[in-house]
């Protein structure tokens, strides 16, 4: 399903992108312009349903006249600006950022990370075997989902989704500072003692798999998780009248997780606990 956005026509902004004159609607970011022009800029913390925090810095590009590089995901296109996306400087920063991340976190379930590490010739091992890592144990405190912060890149998307951008539950926030900063409930309490309502919208937006369905986590641990063997079927949730879209991920005739299409203009990928996790009855055979 494709959403047809209904809003006022926007003025166009003209600027130079890698030597080409491009025109994008006012308010669009450099990343929007790149994608429209078919350029592949790596992104990790950017998401289609949230305001990016531009914290990961893998999408940096060179804006002429600026002292530092700019995050393509958040910097809005301005008339007359000159942007270069693939310079030596930008590539160097992306490479180092990928190295820094991959040396400290587990990116094994981050889509496209391996591909970008190869493309930018990043060598996460070069900081040596003693390089500090997060070294977090997965937090398994309920039957619905697992928090494995060893995979967390601190993109703030789950915090924004749980907080004022979507769910308004505010069960999690960033605690601590610097390398010790972690996504945390109050007093680091188990999720079951927190304000969490198990909507799972944080799982929906997590770009690294740090937050995952317990079903997926268990299957990965058992070595039975196989995305290539899964089908995805988008249907309508039958619980209540809101009518959210559900995408059922099915492997060997079992629902293994539930996501929701982000381009749905009503829900933007959000669900509640019933739609997200209440699928067992389907499988009572």
């Amino acid at each position, binding site marked *: 399903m494709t959403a047809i956005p209904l809003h006022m026509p926007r003025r166009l902004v003209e600027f130079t992108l890698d030597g080409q004159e491009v025109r994008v609607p006012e308010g669009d970011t450099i990343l929007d312009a790149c994608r429209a022009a078919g350029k592949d800029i790596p992104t990790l913390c950017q998401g289609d349903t949230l305001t990016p925090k531009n914290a990961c810095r893998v999408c940096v590009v060179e804006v002429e006249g600026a002292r530092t590089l700019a995050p393509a995901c958040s910097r809005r296109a301005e008339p007359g600006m000159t942007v270069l996306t693939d310079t030596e400087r930008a590539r160097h920063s992306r490479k*180092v950022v990928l190295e820094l991340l991959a040396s400290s976190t587990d990116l094994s379930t981050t889509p496209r990370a391996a591909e970008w590490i190869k493309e930018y010739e990043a060598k996460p091992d070069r900081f040596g075997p003693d390089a500090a890592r997060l070294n977090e144990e997965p937090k398994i405190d309920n039957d619905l989902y697992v928090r494995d912060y060893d995979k967390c890149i*601190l993109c703030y998307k789950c915090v924004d989704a749980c907080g004022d951008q979507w769910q308004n539950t505010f069960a999690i926030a*960033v605690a*601590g500072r610097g390398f010790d*900063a972690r996504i945390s409930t*109050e007093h680091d309490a188990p999720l079951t003692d927190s*304000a969490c309502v198990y909507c799972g919208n944080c799982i929906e937006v997590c770009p690294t798999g740090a937050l995952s369905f317990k079903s997926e986590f268990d299957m990965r641990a058992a070595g039975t998780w196989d995305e290539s063997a899964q089908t995805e079927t988008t249907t309508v949730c039958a619980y209540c009248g809101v009518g959210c879209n559900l995408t059922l991920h099915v492997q060997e005739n079992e629902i293994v997780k539930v996501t929701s299409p982000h381009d749905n203009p009503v829900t933007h990928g959000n669900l509640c606990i019933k739609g997200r996790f209440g699928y067992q009855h389907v499988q009572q055979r």
Partner: protein
Amino acid sequence: MDLKFTDTAKATDEERDAVDALLGAPGTGWEGGTGRSSDELRWARGGAAARERRDLLLPALHAVNDRVGWLSEGALDYICRRLTVPPAEAYGVATFYSMFSVRPRPAKVLHVCTDLACAARGGSLSAADAVGPDVSVQPSPCLGLCERAPAALLVRAGRSPSARGAEGTEGDPARPALDGQGGSGRSPGEGRPAHATAVVAPATPTALVAATTDPERAPAEPSAGAAVPQAGDPALTLLARVGVVDPASLDDYRAHGGYAALRRAFALGPAGVIREVTDAGLLGRGGAAFPTGRKWQATASQADHPHYLVCNADESEPGTFKDRVLMEGDPFALIEAMTIAGYAIGAHQGFLYLRGEYPRALGLLENAIASARARGLLGEDVLGQGYAFDIEIRRGAGAYICGEETAIFNSIEGYRGEPRTKPPFPVEKGLFGKPTAVNNVETLVNVLPILNGRTEETKLFCLSGNVARPGIYELPFGVTLRELIELAGPPDRMRAVLLGGAAGSFVRPDELDIPLTFEGTRAAGTTLGSGVVLVLDDTVELPRVLLRIAEFFRDESCGQCVPCRVGTVRQEEALHRIKDRTGADAAGDIALLREVGAAMRDASICGLGQTAWNAVESAIDRLGAYE
């Protein structure tokens, strides 16, 4: 908002009392009152009003920390109920600041400086071995007391200093937290002594034991004037009153020319003030040297209202203590200057964001604001000119990053002190999303002589390390580094000078002819930064100094962006590896440092990550640190 509280943890009476002393008693069960009456269960209100007060989160955390010494689950929970702040967010804020603890700890905490100037003077961490077991010793970044290095700050939690007035004991504003009286008249339900602080510098073992045993009776600090070796020199402008006026007396300030500049400002009108400041070419003294007139003009011309003024008195750059000396020696000057700045930009509210480690400056500024208010120099109708302006002090709680202009906004608003992405710039969307001008203390104080007709511009320098007469020096722009260090008494065998602070750069003893101007230092590949001149003689181990700088940035990174959060860790690791190495043995790690440093400079969100590698890079390139 859907807030859920854990009902297991309850605030103690003392914790509730500390919070209520700040916020007033709770009106209903919905905002933290005990129990809900059956009547109250029929409606829920108060949330929206309480959320408007989110900016009182940091003061509320201070209130409990000052009283009890740490932030329990129950106390955090109560604060959250009072202000309708989600508990997870309040926990995130509480764990952001190094002066707070969410684990129990003794009422006495000794913050011991382990930073550059103190380390160059032998440090005081070992001296702290002598203190009793009832004291929690916490290594601290620079305490801004470098001229009296090595330094330490004792904080003893206890009954709030506001109880002082109730007992009729007039506090000495110069020693704000010393309640000086033993035993009598405790506030209800409390057995502990009053909150107290003691600044110990130089921190000898005896002085530390004295201060930790009985902070009330610790020897008084020398006056701010003692930090001005040039005292009495008629050429002094910014420091002219430091050590001369009584910093607690508004009358004395007026007798020494105070408030003439504000009168002139009213005569000129806001546009006229901005014109004079612009014509004088005043550049910001907080490190970035941005033209103040332009900043004010840009703020004044915003259509969105209200406008805000923020005075950046966070001063946590290692080696910097000029703002402290100005505030302690001439606090009314800052209040007057803020009033003028507020008038120029069309603000009616100014926030003075003061670093949490400056108890004496806090007391003096509180006194100055209260006196100015009492005399109609702040408030509804300043000087009878129909202009309303007031100033609120906000205490930081130990986070260097909160000196970054947008991090200050988050900190004041009750969020984690993480810098915001720019654009939008503060002049457009600053504090509470409104047009805001942020200025450094020294910048603001410069406005007074400009309006009083002074022509020559001067700069304050913070001399510390191995010099005979450390302190604040005021000199006209353009004197050379050599001339400055000569004044302060150079060491016999100088090894290096760190110019501009931890975010600045090292220069060699043969480069001392650099003219001390913003352009001159830039041309020489260095920076004036916040005016730090840290002189190191050849007894210091350079690799250890570099390690300390790296450790500082790793500790102080807010953690928001990857290049800085992980980059500072990788740099510190590399410096550890090459601590005792030179030449080819160090080459690989130096190449690594350069690569990581380049990405940090280019891709970090804010100035902390962008400059964290400057000093170490300069030590490698200019001093040949690992050759």
